[in-house]
């Protein structure tokens, strides 16, 4: 039995070492290409558009007959000359039968007009493309690339090839690695060290993961909680659900208030994440109906909205909601809010359980539990109000009426805290 953790560690090391070569993260891709769309009409070439985009350009097949292309730098020097095939000519073959046997015939399709595209890799020092008639060397047309290059780097200022930032960054693929000079012995030692480090890390990871799993199981009594996400924006529904699943919750979704009530009639979730600005039934109306129904009034509801919280919202709904999350919501904020709700519920349940069997008045226990939640929620909402209306900042704050309303909320919280203290004192004996 004592050997099993060692064997497990060795197995993990071997698996991880084997997987080491297959970490599937793509290398950074910064190849850029220029495509110039041209038309030729009875020998006259006109540039229609120029596009610069991320991606590799095709290779240059040498010696195609047609025109001569030139890439020119800002100082007028020629960076590259290359052939551009004549787009009006396509050469084909047809194999036909003949009394003497099969033979090949040529087919040439020649036109006066044609569209064509010249594509080449972007070189930031190139500022102009020119195309010449090779027979007389006549310039047929030129294209100034600078506006498109400037526009491209304005859209992608952090690209390492951006001339404005050259010098502050290392170009891709330009940092030479020292040639492998380690002796085979040193390299083997490195491999051993690597495997040992992987093994130690795996032990820590497994240990931490296992202990976390135990805590989650023993403390919460359930492996996975279910959250109903309600929002009329399908993108938000999808993203929030993804975030929640990533955090280990199971989710259901409802695209509106009415659908939320329908979902609640099917099964009771552990928490509802409710958007406010929905049509036709908004979040507040949905919340009112959830709390009106005895079957659903106990479900914790967290409001999710882009709309700033108002003191009136706090006064009207603080009894009904557990938290209020402002969009855009990050993964951490979302997790914090949900864990806070579940932790608070668990703590209150533990307190009630501890008070059972004592001679303490059940009414007082219930009031204590209710006030614990209300004070906690109200403090969160008050903090949100202070942040939203910048009461702590030096910049001009909200109007007098709004400030007064927020201060009233603060006073209400103080009163509730006092009452909570009184009840706790009365209950005494460290139960609460």
């Amino acid at each position, binding site marked *: 039995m004592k050997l099993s953790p060692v064997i497990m560690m060795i197995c993990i090391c071997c698996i991880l070492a084997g997987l*080491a070569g297959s970490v599937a993260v793509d290398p950074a891709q910064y190849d850029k290409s220029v495509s110039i769309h041209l038309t030729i009409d009875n020998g006259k070439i006109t540039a229609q558009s120029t596009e610069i985009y991320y991606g590799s350009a095709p290779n240059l097949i040498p010696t195609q007959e047609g025109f001569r292309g030139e890439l020119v730098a800002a100082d007028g020097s020629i960076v590259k000359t290359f052939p551009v095939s004549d787009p009006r*000519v396509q050469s084909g073959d047809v194999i036909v039968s003949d009394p003497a046997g099969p033979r090949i015939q040529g087919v040439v399709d020649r036109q006066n007009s044609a569209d064509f595209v010249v594509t080449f890799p972007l070189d930031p020092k190139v500022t102009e493309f020119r195309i010449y008639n090779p027979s007389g060397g006549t310039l047929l047309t030129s294209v100034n690339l600078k506006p498109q290059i400037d526009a491209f780097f304005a859209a992608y*200022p*952090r690209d390492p090839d951006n001339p404005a930032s050259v010098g*502050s960054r290392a170009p*891709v693929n330009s*940092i030479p690695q020292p040639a492998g000079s380690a002796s085979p012995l040193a390299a083997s030692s490195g491999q051993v*060290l690597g495997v040992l480090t992987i093994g130690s890390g*795996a032990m820590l990871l497994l240990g931490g993961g296992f202990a976390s799993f135990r805590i989650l199981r023993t403390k919460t009594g359930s492996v996975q909680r279910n959250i109903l996400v309600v929002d009329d924006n399908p993108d938000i529904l999808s993203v929030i659900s993804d975030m929640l699943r990533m955090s280990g919750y199971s989710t259901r979704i409802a695209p509106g208030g009415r659908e939320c009530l329908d979902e609640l009639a099917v099964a009771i979730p552990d928490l509802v994440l409710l958007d406010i600005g929905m049509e036709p039934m908004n979040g507040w109306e949905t919340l009112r109906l959830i709390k009106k129904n005895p079957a659903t009034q106990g479900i914790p509801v967290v409001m999710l909205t882009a709309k700033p919280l108002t003191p009136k919202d706090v006064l009207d709904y603080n009894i009904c909601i557990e938290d209020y999350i402002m969009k*855009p919501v990050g993964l951490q904020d979302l997790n914090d809010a949900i864990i806070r709700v579940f932790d608070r519920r668990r703590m209150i349940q533990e307190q009630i359980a501890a008070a059972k069997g004592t001679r303490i008045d059940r009414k007082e226990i219930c009031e204590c539990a209710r006030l614990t939640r209300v004070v906690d929620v109200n403090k969160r909402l008050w903090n949100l109000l202070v942040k939203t209306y910048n009461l702590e900042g030096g910049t001009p704050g909200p109007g007098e009426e709004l400030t007064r309303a927020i201060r009233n909320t603060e006073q209400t919280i103080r009163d509730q805290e006092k009452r909570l203290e009184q009840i706790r004192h009365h209950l005494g004996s460290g139960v609460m």
Partner: protein
Amino acid sequence: MNTMNRRQQLLILGIISGIGLVAILAGIMIYMNASAAIIQKPAEQIQVAPPQQPAPGENISPGSSGYRVSLSTVDVSTGQPLGNVSVYLDGGYAGSTAGQGATGILEIGPVSEGLHTIRVTKSGYIEDTKNVSVPAAYPFKIGLQTELLVPIREAGSHDTKIDIVFVPSGTTYNCAKETKIASTRYVTDRSAFVSDVNRVVNESLFTLDSVTDKTSPIPADYRDRFNIYYYYDSSDFADAFSGCAGTVPEKFWKTVPFADMVVILYPTYYTLDTGAPCEPNGCVHPGTGRSWMKTPADQNVLFQHESGHAIFGLIDTYCGTTEYWQNDPDPNVWSSQAGCRQDAINHSRDPLACRQIQQTNPTACTKQFWRWDPDPDIMHEGYSGTFGKASTLRITYILDHIDAWGRTP
């Protein structure tokens, strides 16, 4: 509380697990570096991402104010979260959704207020760029579409290999009726197309060593100088008989800009025995950036003839209605007898084998161009033969000069 609450316990365990994860990653790096030292991997092949620094004047430096941007990437065909997506903010690498497993969510920040570009890339998917305004009311969601391009054989980067992309045609031609006809073989059966592509590659392109000159052979690793792909869009097919060389699907060039040669493949050409005027079996549209050819799947030698034009720049050596020029360097057709003979002497070949391109049967035909390769020459016959010494030299030249842009040392 005199003991840690559950959240604190979980936090500490999370830190321990995090240290474990970092140790695993460090161990992997140590292991891989040690392995790299053993195999003496050339240093210049190692790709290094640029260090992440803010652009001058940009308000996103660590510690300055900004917004956290949540980004979610999904596979549009399944709607499922997509992990391991590389994310670039304003052109600079910002991270990979791999950092958070396969959930397809990445948090970037701090990001300054205003308009930004977010580019996402992942192998096997079409890359996408979105313009976003920060702050936004909700997390950004970017859907990636599965690439319509499927690799058959990838030997290296696009710069250093000849990228050949096969595209199925929804049409073919009936010469007896002199009409283009719809072909359902590839439209209804993707596997038939893939099977034909593999056969053409294995029996035509990858048998070049058997049809080229053995005394001055093409590089032994010539197969490794090609990347082979096929492109299949079940809603849009190429038309091999729209114009001489056909047309490719509308979205093709946007999704496969790096294609060196596109091969429009059609199943078969019906009734070959009536002669002209019929549409060509094979045809090439050369271009600087957009080149394509068409060829039937059931004629291996014709594929070699057309790819001789399209990939290697070889010229027809039969006499007829076709294009002639001296395709320097290492040509297979010369614009003068003297040039042909001098080149033959330079390459230790018999100068007297130079002959004018001409034909007396069925109709008299003479061109002011000369050829050296003996018959049966693939560029002369089209349906049989081999590549002679001159053509072989030209093929080798192209295989040795893949990146004429000079992107790679």
